[in-house]
């Protein structure tokens, strides 16, 4: 950000003299403390007051519920009252029995949760890879080659955002029915009586791709769109073939967008359960299905909360990595 060199006016000097400690601390923290040098004076509460309403919303609707999840997961259930949850709010009452039992069901004994966990990873990774490859191809074409129809293609690419995700999966449910169009098309080849909805992995993976790929395409498109043609021509002028130019120029320049796309696509997929509800069966159940089943089950509240915590830990690692990357990019910007 270009810095404006302005004269320091008298009130600013006075303020700086009055609170020398505060100013020195700020200067150490921030290499580009532009507001000091700019001479514009904002009251100290000015920017925080902008942040406050949103922050309050976050505290009460994001952080507090998370703490309550801890309280329920480490609480107990009241068997005499239909198994409703009894949360223990104070940390010293927390009991880790149910959490440990739930955790053990991933790897010990009958490990009933192991298969859904592996399946979830399998589906999410497969779907993410397909999203990335297919999405990149479409974004690349739209950004670089689609001059005449670019507007139309963009509108079509953006349209899934405002068509209900459920409606799109519901549409697929109709198509994949045993008497639906897909089976009718496949009938001449001999596959006409395949039941796609009985619990096939490929149905779920393609369903996930179908639902989430628009989130991959748009960031990559935006970043590719901004790559100047001159950079690519320079690559070619310096002797690179098409493939080399792509590999060494285009791909690195679009790397932040690829990362963003992967995160926006992969992390929500881990918690997806309605795709399986609509397109699959218990044989293809995912982690999200485990959670939703326990929220409806009698006396399942502590288990549901424990599963939520476990899922949060699973997605926390990529989340942290992504947030660190974006912070670094913002600082470099």
């Amino acid at each position: 950000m270009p810095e404006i060199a302005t004269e320091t006016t008298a009130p600013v000097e006075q303020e700086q003299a009055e609170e020398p400690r505060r100013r020195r601390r700020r200067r150490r923290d921030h290499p580009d403390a532009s507001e000091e040098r700019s001479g514009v004076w904002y009251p100290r509460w000015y920017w925080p007051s902008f942040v406050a309403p949103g922050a309050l919303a976050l505290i009460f609707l994001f952080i507090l519920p998370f703490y309550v999840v801890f309280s329920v997961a480490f609480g107990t259930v009241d068997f005499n009252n239909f198994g409703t949850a009894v949360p223990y709010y104070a940390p010293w009452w927390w009991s880790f029995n149910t959490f440990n039992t739930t955790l053990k069901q991933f790897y010990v004994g009958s490990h009933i949760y192991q298969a859904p966990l592996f399946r979830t990873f399998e589906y999410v990774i497969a779907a993410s890879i397909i999203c990335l490859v297919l999405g990149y191809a479409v974004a690349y074409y739209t950004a670089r080659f689609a001059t005449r129809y670019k507007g139309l293609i963009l509108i079509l690419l953006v349209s899934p955002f405002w068509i209900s995700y459920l409606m799109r999966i519901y549409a697929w449910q109709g198509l994949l029915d045993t008497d639906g169009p897909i089976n009718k098309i496949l009938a001449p080849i001999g596959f006409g009586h395949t039941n796609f909805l009985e619990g096939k992995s490929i149905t779920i993976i393609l369903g996930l791709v179908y639902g989430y790929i628009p989130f991959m395409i748009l960031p990559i498109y935006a970043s590719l769109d901004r790559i100047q043609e001159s950079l690519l021509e320079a690559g070619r002028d310096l002797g690179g073939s098409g493939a080399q130019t792509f590999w060494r120029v285009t791909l690195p320049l679009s790397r932040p967008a690829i990362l963003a796309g992967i995160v926006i696509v992969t992390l929500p997929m881990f918690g997806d359960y309605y795709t399986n509800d609509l397109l699959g069966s218990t044989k293809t159940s995912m982690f999200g299905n485990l959670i939703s089943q326990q929220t409806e089950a009698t006396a399942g509240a502590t288990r549901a909360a424990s599963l939520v915590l476990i899922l949060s830990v699973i997605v926390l690692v990529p989340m942290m990595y992504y947030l660190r990357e974006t912070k670094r990019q913002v600082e470099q910007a």
Partner: protein
Amino acid sequence: MRHPKDISRRQFLTRAGGAAIAMPSLAAILAACTKPGSETPGGSGSALDNIPIATLDNPVTLPPTQDPIAADTPIESGPLVLYNWADYIYKKVVADFEDKFGVDVQITTFNNLEEGIQKVVNGQVTPDVFVPTPGYLRRLVAKDLLQPLQHDLIPNMSNVWPSYSNPGPYYDLGWNYSVPYTIYTWGVAYNRDRVPDDSAAQQGWEMLWNHDYAGEISLYDSYGDTIAITILRNGSLDVNTQDPQVIDAAKQAILQTINDNQARLTINGVYAKLPAGDYTVAEAWSGDIVGAQWYLPNGVGTDILGYWKPEDGKTMIGNDLLVVPTVSQNPRLAHEFINFMLDEKEGTENFTQWNGYQPPFTSIQPDTLVKDGIVPDTLTSAVVTEDMFKKDLTPYELPPEIDQLWLDAWTEIKAGA
């Protein structure tokens, strides 16, 4: 020049003020942090906590938690909230009720009873009329969630089999809290084009485990029902078993048919999918298969619908209830609705035109049901008679620890391990 370490007066006041605000709230938080359950028990009366689980041999009178509403309470203006299974009441009958009383009826539905109970218990749904099974009645009353019925407002109870009012059903002697809505048996519905009747009769429950029908098998997405019929299939007659091995064997059997035969867990497979040919065999309540005749595609006759039920003494029989929750905003209207559903004309219309589930009316003669064509003649086995209740198996409420065993088995099944 002020020493940098001196705090300004403003800073001091701010910090002191903050501490002053924080202290009481900290105290309040600490006070609220007593361990739940460590408060002195007292509750709403010890009589409620000690209601025993009802069985046929030990029928139970549910103590009244409050007085029923007075018979002369004025009829409220509604809207009446009905919390019911999905697709379980004829909309035209509901519309008739709306016209008769000039009120609106809002139907909220649930797909399985566990979810429904949970929403009533935590107040997510505040219905005026609720449709549970007898297995939940004791717990609902114990938690003061139901109000006693005012018998004077439900004169149509005389249309129901006398055993339901005098002395009353085993779970609710004296019908303090409930009236029966429908009666049904458990069995296997099958497509008669693909499964001949004699083959069905020979296989019985095995139809749901038959690999020939792979991909076309449906089981109910309800832990009590499916585990119970699997126990029957495995040869035991104890549908309320407390034996972990029996439960485990049932769990393994269900997993086996899901994995090898792609059995699906649905709640409406019998009427929504079987007539259309998507399923060949399905675990079914008798009412579901009778109601399936109204879901047949064009040009398909009712003779493709078949229903097999085990012989006398080996089949399960049950009924659903109409109850009025305590939180009901329109109790008088709720009573009117219950009375309306017990009306001969309306209740029969619900059954014969749409629902398929038989109400226990004295006016409904099982032999005339088939003769009059209400029940297709291929589905005679779906008709329920009163003496079946004496001979057949009744599912009871399970004690919490045993219930947990059943639920754990079901969790494993649903996780698709």
